[in-house]
């Protein structure tokens, strides 16, 4: 195997496409998953405004979406992706299934982060006359922020993994390269390099996320 400038260019492009898909999908995933997680945490029977029926409905939808394997979701969503993006392959198109797969997963993580917040602090805010919105914003999100940042880090890693899977159906990015060269052309070397890059990217994202979390945590004396 030769690593010529063409392959380097290809890999750089792959990295760029992968980061593009992962970052945009994470942002869109949070645009859906953050409100979902907040609603789950608030409407739970121990939440600040228990709404058992609403919780049940959100809970079931979240579970169903989470239990569909990503590859199946990818195929199921092809018509939706076509309608939204105009085509069903390439990195922009892959953002659609990635976002739909990420949102319920993110919702669950946000829910669990918010539920970790000390009940006593929530009560203190209620005793001051805080509205539910204020409690969500200043107490739940504020106090859970470290756990939420760790959640973002986990999401980035998971979505990066999903994005590589999308390579099977021409999803663009590093996964696409790995499949095209490794599987169809038997260029194991390029495939291994691609996999290594994915691993390194996940590591870097984890490292950055954990650094930020640690730096912002005020519970460490």
């Amino acid at each position, binding site marked *: 195997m030769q690593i010529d400038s063409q392959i380097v260019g290809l890999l750089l492009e792959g990295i760029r496409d992968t980061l593009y898909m992962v970052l945009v999908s994470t942002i869109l995933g949070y645009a859906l998953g953050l409100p979902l997680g907040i609603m789950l945490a608030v409407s739970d029977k121990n939440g600040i405004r228990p709404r058992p029926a609403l919780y049940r409905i959100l809970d079931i939808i979240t579970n169903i979406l989470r239990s569909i394997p990503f590859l199946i979701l990818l195929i199921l969503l092809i018509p939706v992706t076509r309608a939204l993006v105009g085509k069903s392959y390439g990195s922009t198109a892959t953002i659609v299934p990635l976002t739909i797969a990420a949102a319920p997963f993110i919702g669950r993580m946000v829910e669990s982060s918010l539920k970790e917040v*000390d009940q006593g602090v929530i009560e203190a805010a209620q005793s001051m006359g805080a509205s539910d919105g204020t409690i969500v914003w200043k107490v739940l999100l504020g*106090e859970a922020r470290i756990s939420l940042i760790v959640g973002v880090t986990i999401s980035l890693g998971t979505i990066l993994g999903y994005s590589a899977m999308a390579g099977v159906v021409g999803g663009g990015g590093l996964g696409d390269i790995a499949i095209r060269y490794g599987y169809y052309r038997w260029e194991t070397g390029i495939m291994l390099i691609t996999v290594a890059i994915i691993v390194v990217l996940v590591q870097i994202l984890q490292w950055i996320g954990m650094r930020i979390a640690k730096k912002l945590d*005020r519970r460490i004396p």
Partner: protein
Amino acid sequence: MAFLEAEQLFKTFHTANGDVEALKGVSFSVKKGQIYGVIGLSGAGKSTLVRCINLLERPDKGRILLEDHDMTALTDAELRKERQSIGMIFQHFNLLMQRNVLDNVCLPMEIAGISKKDARKKALEYLEAVGLANKAHAFPVQLSGGQKQRVAIARVLAGKPKLILCDEATSALDPETTGTILHLLQEINKKHQITMVVITHEMRVIEELCDEVAVLESGRIVESGLVSKVFNDPQSEAAKRLLLVRQTQDILKGTGE
């Protein structure tokens, strides 16, 4: 005229292990500017009672009259408004761990819609009042228990309360720190004429802080009156028992020295 009046409060908790009757018809009244104590053993229903006053817990039956307004009849929005003028101090302080001391004190002012800049300026004054201005930029994790409780007191003052509720405010503190916190509460009461309801299982808190006391046992007030009267001449078994606990502690302390 009573400033605060609890009328026949009932509260039952329905749990997996059956019903728990926490309050079985509790009534009492507090005059303006008074420090009213409620003492009882663990599980007597003290926390439930004090939480019924600001409706963190809604009584099944009964009314809470604050300056003749029925708290239980308020809408959610009215209740939130009313709570802004009722401060609450907790056993475990309940400070926001991710906010520094100054911003913790700002919280009630933010809720009241005061701008961040004005709130910060005022917060510093309240911290001065509790002797912690030098810790304004520290985080709760860096403070001792007594300091945390003083921040909580500054936070309560920031809401300009007409009533302060204390639920075991000194129970997580050592005896010496308990003394300084009790002194601070007394000073606040004297200076601003703020009415207080103090819940405790410690006799000392009642003796050092309160004007009147009610003894709560199994969800009922079994005795009440001026502190001096109740503890010089206890009528109920519960009050006698509490007194005995106190005397035993004194004796043990005496032999220890």
